């Protein structure tokens, strides 16, 4: 089953004087349970592509289907629900809410979904344990290392049991060791729990984690490589 389908997608930024084709007619699918690594140099359109898949942005042209649902017809609330229930985001800069503790950050998506206090606390603790942060639960982001923060972010991304995990340079700000830990957790989610992972990076060493590596250049798919 295809969880992400892109059909002839364009993203064009126009100003008065020039236009930039960030995505220039992309068509691709991602199968359920797949681990796809999207690579390419800066400005190749990989982040734009990820934002479209995450329903954070809309294409200028073409169709984006998430879990079989055509997203261009959805209103803001429906898109929000799709993000909340189907997609987990992991950002390069972690993007935790600085005023909340690790536990509360992980609880946040569940609050938005309307879980009760006990249920969400229990699940958040379990998730934090699973990323090895049982002792840091009550720390605020500024009291944690980058690697720890990114692991909190992973736990938060998994809070509502998403089908798809979208990772935007998840190791970009981390040292090799922390980066490795983070990648192992993501890989584990994919292999053991069947979460579809789409990871954007320009770090070629991450290619080995994927089932498939898609290379972008100037908004177009340059090559698709299956990793055996």
């Amino acid at each position, binding site marked *: 089953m295809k969880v992400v389908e892109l059909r002839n997608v364009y993203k064009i930024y126009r100003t008065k004087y020039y236009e930039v084709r960030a995505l220039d007619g992309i068509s691709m699918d991602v199968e359920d349970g797949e681990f796809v690594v999207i690579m390419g140099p800066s400005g190749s359109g990989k982040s734009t592509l990820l934002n479209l898949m995450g329903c954070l942005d809309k294409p200028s042209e073409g169709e984006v289907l998430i879990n079989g649902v055509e997203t261009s017809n959805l209103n803001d609330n429906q898109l929000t629900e799709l993000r909340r229930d189907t997609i987990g*985001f992991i950002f390069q800069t972690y993007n935790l809410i600085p005023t909340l503790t690790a536990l509360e950050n992980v*609880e946040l998506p569940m609050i*938005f979904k309307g879980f009760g206090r006990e249920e969400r606390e229990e699940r958040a603790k379990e998730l934090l344990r699973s990323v090895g942060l049982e002792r840091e639960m009550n720390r605020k982001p500024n009291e944690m290392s980058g690697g720890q923060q990114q692991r909190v972010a992973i736990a938060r991304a998994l809070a509502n049991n998403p089908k798809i995990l979208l990772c935007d340079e998840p190791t970009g700000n981390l040292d090799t060791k922390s980066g490795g830990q983070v990648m192992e957790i993501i890989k584990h989610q994919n292999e053991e729990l069947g979460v579809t992972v789409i990871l954007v990076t320009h770090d070629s060493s991450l290619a080995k984690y994927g089932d498939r590596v898609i290379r972008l250049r100037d908004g177009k798919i340059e090559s698709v490589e299956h990793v055996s």
Partner: protein
Amino acid sequence: MFLELAKRNLQRAKVRSLLAVVGILIGVMAVSAIGIFGESLKAAVVQNFEEVANELIVSPNFQEGYKYIEEKDINRIKKLPNVAEAIAIKSDSLLIESKKKKSYAMVYAMDEKDVEEMFEAEKGAIRLKNSCVVGKRLAEFVEIRVKSKITVGGKEFRVAAILEDAGARFDINPNSAVILSPEDFEKVSDVGYTMLIVKAESLEKVDDVKREIEEKINSRDEKVVVFDLKLILERINEVFSQINTFLMAIASVSLLVAGVSILNIMLMSTIERTKEIGVMRAIGAYRSTILKIFLMEALVLGLIGSGIGSVLSIAGGYVIDLIILQDASYVFQLSTILYVILGFCIGIFVSVVSGLYPAWKASRLEPIEALRYE
């Protein structure tokens, strides 16, 4: 959780939040304290009038050809329900002569006990048996003292007392008058009853009594005219309420300024937290959720500011009352406390309204734009 989030976000910029709270606090305090003072002032003035406010003045209807009130009507009025007391008065303008001067003056016929009840003697004691009491201004004019002899309408009387200045009154004014007993009055004048002062049992009964009198006495002819002093009380109340509203409107300007400061700090906060808003939207917060989060912050600011402001306004009202009215007891009346509640509510209203635009703005941010914001 949103409340907790609001609290922590406000703690993030402590000084800024504190200043916003101080702004609201001052505004609420100004509005409530002035409200309390205005209400106290009204209460103080009304209190002076309350003694006479249950009085009705019944006069003969000159326009319909009635010069006096008939005695049988007076007796009927005295027997009406809710009437505590009725004082019938005769009055005539007669020539007053002392040793040195003479003058025409109003002469009233009243029972001794009624005179004692209504007026105070400045000199001498109120005695109407073969004597009279004289108003202060008249006594000065015709140059008489207690125990002097004066001639009223050709008959000689001893002055038993000179009354205190009664100030402005709506019923009878003794300042330039002589008061005789009804028996003595009959010897010098043959007029009938010119006025009946009716006291209702309570302020609430005034309207009933007025209606009863008009029904019973004026059933066939409009024989008497009834004027109730409660009307004056109502007018005073109205005027003071207007003054109070005006004063509070002026004080509200400070609340307006506080509102603008909340608007300002929350707009800054929205801009600073743009990325955070983007993250929350990305992980599943509706626009309405963002709106709630920001409104909650405005509400918390309003609650703290208005709460402290309300408490301080009682202190402020107390001090103002003490300084201007020399009596702070009015502060603890129900009607003044209502102004504290009003101030509190206005404070919260202003805070939330001021937070509305920044909150709306935050909720309208596109997630992708917000996430890109550095």
